Each structure stands twice: as structure tokens, then as C-alpha cells.
């Protein structure tokens, strides 16, 4: 088959198509350094979100103490999965946004809902340029005595819920969160639940680590914990004697 090379010479001839592919200003069409799941749950008096501290380089556990949680304002926090460099760009965007609010000094600041909506528009605009910010973000907050928990993905999909998860957490964590959720959960119960979720994720998600950070938003403000390790237990019957393919078995 005759081939031609999409170098800059053919780019001019083949403007509309080549432009999409060989463009040094295009950043993330495939993620390189990635963070895994983020999970969050609303409680009666605040919100808990958590993420592990791993930034993977493909299947390599490259950065094992990388913080994927951010305090945005005194009432709003952010957790990010996906491409790490894009997440850091998003952190810069938010810092600029908050700095502008501070400089206006008019007592108007971003609410958790407005931060969520802002990120939704930014990520949607980038996907529409076929140059996405390759992230799944959880926005949590507690403002005006109201809990807020919302998610944004690389397509600009935005929605809110009582329990949310991204990445593998959607498959392994969400069912646990839905089962554990009650409107009258305390913050400490919420922390316990997300720890359990990350323990399960650590057992089955190969791009995860048992070192996590938990962020809470309550009337007292946003706090992000130091990273800590989860206790694990490996002597379950199913782990010690795994069933073989031909057994009557679960997956």
C-alpha cells in the first residue's frame, strides 16, 4: 500500500485532517501519569471525599506519595483522578479564580456549586476542542449549611449525588457507598465508609495503593488529612485458596 507521511509538508495539503493529529500544542490524547479513583459521600453535617496517594506511570507505581486532594476555599475541596499534569493545570486555574475573588475583596467567593459548574464548563470546552483535560474530578463542600458533592469528567459531564466515585471506584466502590449511605451519617462514619471502599479498591484495582488522604468539609471548614496507610488483611479464604476457572465460582 502506498503511504505518505503526515509531516508538516503534507499538513498544508491535508489541512483539515492532519491538523488533528500532529500538533505540538495538543497535550493529552492519552494520559501518561495517572491518578486512580476518588470517592465521596455526603454526611448529615458535611461531606467526605478521599483519594489514594498514587500517581502511576502506566503500570508502574511511579509517585507513591502524591496528593490528589486540594482545598479550594474554606468551604470547598477538590479531588482528582486521571492525568496528573492536567490536574495540576486545573489546580492552577482554581488558584487564579480564588485569587481574583480575594482581590475583589467584596465578600463574594466561589461556592462549591459554582466551582463545580466552572470546572464542568472548562472541561466541556476542552473536550469540544478535541484537547481534553483527562480527569475525573470530585467537588465537595459545605456552604450555607448545605452539603455539596458533584463530579466532572473529561467530557464535561457534571452531576451531583449523595455518593460519588470515579474510575474503578464506579464499579467497585459505588455499590458499597450506596449500601452504606444514610442521610444521618456522621463525618466519622463517612470516613470509615470511604476507608472501607479504598481497602476493597486496593485488593482488586491494580493501579491503587493502600495509602490514602481524606478531606472533610463541615461548618468548621475544609480539612485534608495527612496521608496514612490502611490496615489490610490477606488471609481471607478466597485470597488463600483462590478458586480456579472451572470451579463453580464467582468472578
Amino acid at each position, binding site marked *: 500500500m502506498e503511504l505518505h507521511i*503526515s509531516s508538516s509538508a503534507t499538513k498544508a495539503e491535508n489541512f483539515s485532517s492532519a491538523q488533528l493529529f500532529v500538533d505540538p500544542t495538543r497535550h493529552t490524547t492519552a494520559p501518561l501519569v495517572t491518578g486512580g479513583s476518588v470517592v465521596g459521600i455526603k454526611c448529615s453535617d458535611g461531606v467526605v471525599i478521599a483519594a489514594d496517594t498514587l500517581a502511576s506511570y502506566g503500570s508502574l507505581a511511579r509517585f507513591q506519595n502524591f496528593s490528589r486532594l486540594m482545598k479550594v476555599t474554606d468551604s470547598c475541596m477538590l479531588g482528582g483522578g486521571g492525568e496528573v499534569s492536567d490536574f495540576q493545570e486545573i489546580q492552577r486555574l482554581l488558584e487564579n479564580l480564588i485569587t481574583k475573588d480575594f482581590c475583589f475583596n467584596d465578600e463574594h467567593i466561589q461556592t462549591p456549586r459554582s466551582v463545580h459548574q466552572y470546572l464542568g464548563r472548562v472541561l466541556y470546552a476542552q473536550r469540544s476542542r478535541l484537547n481534553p483535560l483527562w480527569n475525573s474530578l470530585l467537588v465537595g463542600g459545605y456552604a450555607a449549611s448545605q452539603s455539596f458533592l458533584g*463530579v466532572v469528567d473529561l467530557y464535561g*459531564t457534571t452531576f451531583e449525588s449523595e455518593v460519588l466515585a470515579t474510575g474503578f471506584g*464506579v464499579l467497585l466502590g459505588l455499590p458499597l457507598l450506596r449500601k452504606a449511605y444514610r442521610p444521618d451519617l456522621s463525618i466519622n462514619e463517612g470516613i470509615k465508609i470511604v476507608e472501607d471502599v479504598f481497602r476493597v479498591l486496593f485488593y482488586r484495582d491494580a493501579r491503587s495503593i493502600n495509602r490514602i488522604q481524606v478531606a472533610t468539609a463541615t461548618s468548621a471548614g475544609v480539612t485534608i488529612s495527612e496521608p496514612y496507610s490502611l490496615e489490610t488483611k490477606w488471609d481471607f479464604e478466597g485470597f488463600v485458596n483462590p478458586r480456579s476457572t472451572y470451579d463453580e465460582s464467582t468472578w
Partner: protein
Amino acid sequence: MWNASVVAVPATESIQRPDFMPYQNNGGTVVAIGGEDYCIVSATTRLGLGFAIPTRNVCRYSILNNRVVLATAGMFADTVTLHKVIKARVKIYEEQQDKPFELRSAAQLLSNTLYYRRFFPYYTFNVLGGLDEDGQGFVYGFDAIGSGEKVKVVCNGTGQALIQPILDNQVERKQQYENKQITNLSLEEALDLVKDVFTSAGERDIYTGDAVDICIITKQRGVFVETFQLKQD
């Protein structure tokens, strides 16, 4: 040197596929029925993604004014964006013209808005329902790029193939075994029908379920919304 497998393109194929696909299917089903003096516009609340359900409760409809409602299935990010655009245009029109936005105007606006993005479409399947200038209930069904028609009943989205034939049969009395008298459905009958078709579609379509928001539009009450629970499996 270039990695040939990445940059070498067959000469016969001048258009390469970009490696980021900007679309996502979040499913959802929307149904609208126009009656003599009422209109029903309904949309499921499940947000599906592959075999997962990231959330069971999203809003797929927008109340444009007290006689026109828009409901959309397809990609949720596009749905939200499209609704923002339409609501802004309706608001500007109503402020400037000091009169309500008519159903047929909304249909034209929606069609133009969708066709404006002909070569990078909103991945959305819309129904628009409400009361026309004469107070009669009518609905419009659209495809993703703005083709649409004014009808009495329409279904769009992932449950379309399951639901539309039943609506044709029950509302328009099409394909009846024996030609029966055409009787117009009352609001109550139409509501029961809507609940039935969503329940049935939920049994066979994995993207239809959880709940359905039903907007009832009448001249007397304006837009009234009720939520009907479906199975969560």
C-alpha cells in the same frame, strides 16, 4: 526518526480518526404525548455509562416557560450544554419581546441550534412538548442534527425502538387488528400509558430505569412535575 506506525497514513484514506473520541452515550429515554388540552413530556433520570450507573438521579428536562418543556436523551454533557443555550435564548427573547416563547418558535430555535452544529453535533435526541397557540397539546421529535416534525406522540433515546410502536398503536390507533374508533386519550389515560411504557422499556433496556420525571402541561395549572419510580436493576 518518525514512528512509522503512528504517522504513516494510507494515501487512500485522507481523513484519519482522532485518538480522542469526544462523544459518550449516557442513554436515557424521553416520551412526549400531546392531547386535546394537555401535553405530557417525560424523561428518565438514570445516567448510564457502559455497564455502570454513575448516578440514578439526573434531570433531563427543562421547563422553558409555563407551556413549553424540552426533554433530551443521549450524551449528558451535551444535554446540559444544549439546555443552557436554549434557556438563555428563550429568556432573552421573552425579555426583549415581552411575550411568551411559543411552542413552534421553540421548535424552530431547537432545530437551528442543532443544525448549527451539523459537523460537530450535539449528541442529543430531543423532544419538545407543550401547548400551541390554540391551546392544543402538540409535541416535536428531533434527531441529533435538527430534523424534526410536529406530531401527537413521540419517543426518543435508547428506549425508542421499544416504546414508539406501542405509542403509535395506543395513541394514534395505528396498526389495529380491527379498525377501531379513534378515541382521544384523556390526561389520566395518557399518564397511565406513559408509566406503563417506561416500566416495560426498563425491563429490556439497561439505560432506562431508576425513575422518570413526568411534566404535565395544562392551560390551567401550567407545568406540573411528578416523579414516577422505576426499577433500579
